[in-house]
């Protein structure tokens, strides 16, 4: 292995692992960064990285274009509150910017209480680790917010896993935990991989290097089954693709269980030894034979039998679940059925099956190349952000218990996601009930923008009215332009030290060093900025840290490996063993089994039952569709899905980077060939897409790969090249697909939204259109009018006071 830092001629070459910014999930791809005179001259893949082996996606290959982009913000800036929405930013010093934030926060804490300050985290970036710490440890507030309706990205899958298995996130086994990879003794390739609502090549894969699927297809003949309304490129290389109606996945998954049980394609011995409630699950699935699922899903019945047989017969088999599990009010049940499918084969945590992690990120740290398992979990003062906040008196137990918005209504969400409930938080912002919120921070989050938040027009109106707002980011964006008073410039992944662990360490294949290669402008890392503001507000806690490394060693690395050692190794493989449940590596008590109430994989979920949810999976049709709303759906005859990725963009990011933008210059709506004819739309036409919530415009791509009756709209599009001031706001409202989808249409436990099953209409229009400004076009639903538009599920629990929830 080469050194982490070496000299070649006049260049210094750093080996490092990527996380963010720019946006990405913790995949930790290996980089070699060439630096000359303090400036990056080249970024290439690191051939010595055991997972990526020199490969890189376009975003890191274009990293120099990002870090040295003329529009990047590289100095702190401030703006008067009355100038929100106008480009009247002024450069200021770090000291002044930190003072402004700390002083505003202190005044609000003194006058209204710390809970009236909230901190938003976005998707994927490192700040996902830090936004709860910003809230809890800097401001003493319980209200960190991930603004996607129903917390519908990753959180539902993490929670499903925690409730039913108790272990870390399940992932395809591509020998990712071993330095000798596919040569590892005992490893075998999956015979069949199911990609369910997931396209691993282009998705932003949380921790998986997606193209490993192609490696296994080419080298080992691994077959694929895809379950997706789209025939995506990987689908054309698959054995079977089930192009189902959007949002009907739970019916499909139940039908697979029906087939696999009927034809004895399950590992009955394993099921008896390690699961709870299999017979009840099978009995439930008798209500969903393939004939019925075929009708619901719009898929040929014979193909369902074939797919379930192919999966059930494969030895071993693996199942990857995607965002479609989360972005569905019926997704909690889908996740439940898919965990059943991953486990009843007996291939969970088996070689070539679906791997499990050692546990949550509080306990799962490697030591000397081997795992610290759950039984060795460190129970000390470092253990959690919450414990630290309580111990140092930064946040009171009462504040945590009674002021975190929405978790009284949705305790299942609050139990795993240590944040507010997003939809409930939005209502609180608008109605000032249970209390008025006064200040927001946005650390790598852009809820007014085009990435994660449903009805961003409502977030926009609510957030711009707050007393004081600040943001940490790299570029100006619609949220900061419209709402913020202070801008902290954030260092990119190659401008700061740190650690990246795949799947946020919940199922780590390796731990990678992010090594600082250069300094750009005055940028500082998320942690450095948090420390600077923290020291002003709570010096007793924060003054122990002088440098980022101090904080990394304290809170990131914990006790297993000082950062300096990780830096030199660059990559430390987790080398976790298989069958951890058999050898007592999952449970805190060191006993064999799973860390659940019953010690087994709970196919019949006692946790769901405790929260008043059905303990077994059931199918519920999409909230917005022909079946649920037969009259309204006549005006909106198509089903829309959104969120499929372009690998050269990360959500709303990268639209300024010419090398990337030119690959997809405009947002595309994919329309089935026959639908395009029926609606009089041709390739390259501008199309207006309307839902009961608003209208936007995207460019038509006519393709036979879309299921008839279904369109796909790209997310994340705005136009940083356009006028940034309100009302245009960088064209934020022109093509923003999130404007078409509601908040507060969640599942019973509080997870799920309509991003992948929303009814729409389409028509041909001329051009991209005007600013579509929600301040003037009347599309913002006032709280009093929301009920008439929002589908109210009959089971929706009444708002219960927080103290009642705490009694439970």
């Amino acid at each position, binding site marked *: 292995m080469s050194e982490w830092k070496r000299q070649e001629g006049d260049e210094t070459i750093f080996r490092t692992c990527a996380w963010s910014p720019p946006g990405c999930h913790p995949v930790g791809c290996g980089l070699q960064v060439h630096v000359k005179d303090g400036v990056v001259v080249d970024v*290439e893949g690191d051939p010595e990285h055991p997972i990526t082996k020199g*490969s*890189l996606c376009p975003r890191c*290959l274009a990293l120099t274009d990002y870090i040295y982009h003329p529009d990047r913000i590289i100095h702190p800036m401030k703006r008067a509150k009355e100038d929100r929405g106008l480009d009247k930013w002024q450069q200021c010093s770090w000291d002044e910017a930190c003072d402004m934030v700390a002083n505003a926060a202190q005044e609000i804490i003194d006058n209204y209480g710390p809970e009236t300050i909230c901190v938003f985290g976005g998707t994927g970036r490192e700040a996902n680790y830090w936004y709860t710490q910003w809230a809890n440890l800097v401001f003493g507030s319980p209200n960190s917010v991930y603004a996607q309706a129903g917390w519908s990205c990753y959180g539902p899958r993490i929670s499903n896993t925690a409730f039913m298995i108790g272990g870390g996130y399940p992932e395809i086994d591509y020998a990712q935990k071993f330095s000798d990879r596919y040569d590892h003794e005992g490893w075998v390739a999956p015979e069949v991989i199911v990609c369910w609502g997931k396209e691993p090549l282009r998705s932003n894969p949380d921790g998986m290097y997606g193209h490993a699927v192609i490696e296994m297809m080419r080298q080992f003949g691994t077959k694929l089954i895809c379950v997706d309304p789209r025939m995506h490129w990987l689908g054309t*290389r698959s054995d079977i693709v089930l192009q189902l109606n959007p949002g009907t996945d739970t019916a499909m998954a139940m039908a697979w269980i029906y087939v696999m049980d009927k034809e004895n394609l399950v590992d009955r011995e394993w099921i008896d030894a390690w699961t709870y409630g299999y017979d009840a699950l099978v009995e439930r699935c008798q209500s969903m034979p393939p004939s019925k699922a075929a009708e619901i899903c719009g898929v040929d019945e014979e193909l369902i039998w074939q797919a379930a047989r192919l999966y059930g017969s494969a030895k071993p088999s693996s199942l990857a679940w995607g965002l479609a599990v989360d972005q569905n009010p019926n997704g909690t049940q889908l996740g439940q059925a898919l965990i059943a499918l991953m486990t009843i084969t007996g291939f969970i945590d088996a070689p070539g099956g679906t791997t499990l992690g050692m546990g949550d990120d509080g306990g799962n740290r490697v030591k000397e190349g081997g795992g610290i398992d759950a039984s060795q979990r460190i129970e000390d003062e470092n253990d959690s952000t919450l414990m630290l906040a309580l111990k140092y008196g930064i946040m009171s137990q009462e504040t945590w218990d009674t002021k975190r918005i929405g978790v009284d209504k949705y305790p299942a969400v609050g139990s795993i996601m240590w944040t507010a409930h997003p939809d409930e938080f939005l209502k609180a912002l608008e109605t000032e009930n249970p209390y008025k919120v006064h200040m927001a921070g946005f650390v790598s989050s852009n809820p007014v923008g085009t990435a994660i938040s449903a009805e961003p027009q409502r977030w926009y109106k609510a957030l711009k009215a707050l007393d004081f707002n600040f943001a940490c980011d790299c570029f100006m964006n619609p949220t900061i332009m419209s709402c913020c008073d202070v801008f902290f410039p954030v260092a990119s992944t190659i401008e700061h030290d740190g650690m990246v662990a795949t799947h946020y360490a919940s199922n780590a294949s390796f731990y990678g060093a992010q090594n600082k290669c250069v300094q750009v402008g005055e940028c500082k890392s998320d942690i450095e900025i948090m420390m600077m503001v923290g020291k002003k507000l709570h010096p007793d806690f924060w003054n122990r840290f002088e440098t980022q490394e101090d904080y990394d060693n304290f809170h990131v690395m914990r006790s297993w490996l000082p950062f300096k050692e990780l830096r030199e190794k660059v990559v430390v493989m987790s080398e976790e063993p298989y069958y951890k449940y058999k050898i007592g590596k999952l449970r805190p008590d060191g006993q064999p089994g799973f860390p659940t109430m019953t010690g087994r994989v709970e196919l019949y979920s006692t946790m769901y039952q405790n929260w008043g949810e059905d303990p077994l999976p059931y199918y519920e049709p999409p909230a917005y569709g022909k079946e649920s709303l037969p009259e309204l759906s006549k005006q909106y005859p198509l089903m829309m899905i959104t969120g499929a990725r372009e690998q050269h963009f990360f959500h709303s990011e990268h639209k300024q980077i010419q090398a990337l933008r030119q690959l997809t210059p405009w947002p595309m709506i994919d329309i089935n060939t026959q639908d395009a004819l029926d609606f009089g739309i041709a390739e390259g036409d501008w199309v207006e897409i309307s839902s009961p919530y608003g209208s936007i415009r995207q460019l038509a791509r006519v393709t036979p790969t879309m299921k008839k009756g279904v369109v796909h709209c790209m997310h994340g599009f705005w136009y940083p090249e356009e006028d940034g001031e309100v009302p245009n706001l960088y064209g934020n409202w022109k093509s923003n697909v999130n404007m078409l989808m509601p908040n507060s249409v969640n599942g019973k436990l509080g997870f799920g939204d309509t991003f992948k099953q929303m009814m729409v209409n389409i028509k041909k229009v001329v051009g991209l259109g005007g600013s579509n400004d929600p301040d003037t076009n009347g599309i913002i639903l006032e709280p009093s009018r929301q009920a008439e538009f929002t589908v109210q599920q009959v089971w929706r629990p009444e708002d219960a006071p927080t103290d009642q929830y705490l009694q439970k």
Partner: protein
Amino acid sequence: MSHGAIYIDFEFCSGCHSCEIACRKHLRIANDKDGIKVLEDRPYQQENGAWHWDYIAYPTELCDLCEDRVAEGKLPSCVQACQAKVLEFGTIEECAEKLKKKPKKAAIFVP
């Protein structure tokens, strides 16, 4: 030494464009130029129901097969960056051997 060439298994080229950008950075050429270019033959369903949808990356006249990188013992930038690892570098003869072993949806380019 025999002339160098690029082998591609385009059955599995996913069209990610990594090769294009890696090459452009290496050659230090503008965004409107390419040393290797990913082409797409857009999807359609064949008579037998099977799907056709191919990407293929081919080197242009700006490609020098990364002479300087190869001289240093490195792979050409496109080959190294390729996420699907479907691009390979070798002599024409070596690439022909690869083609013999995979006589389906594969090609050799000599820029």
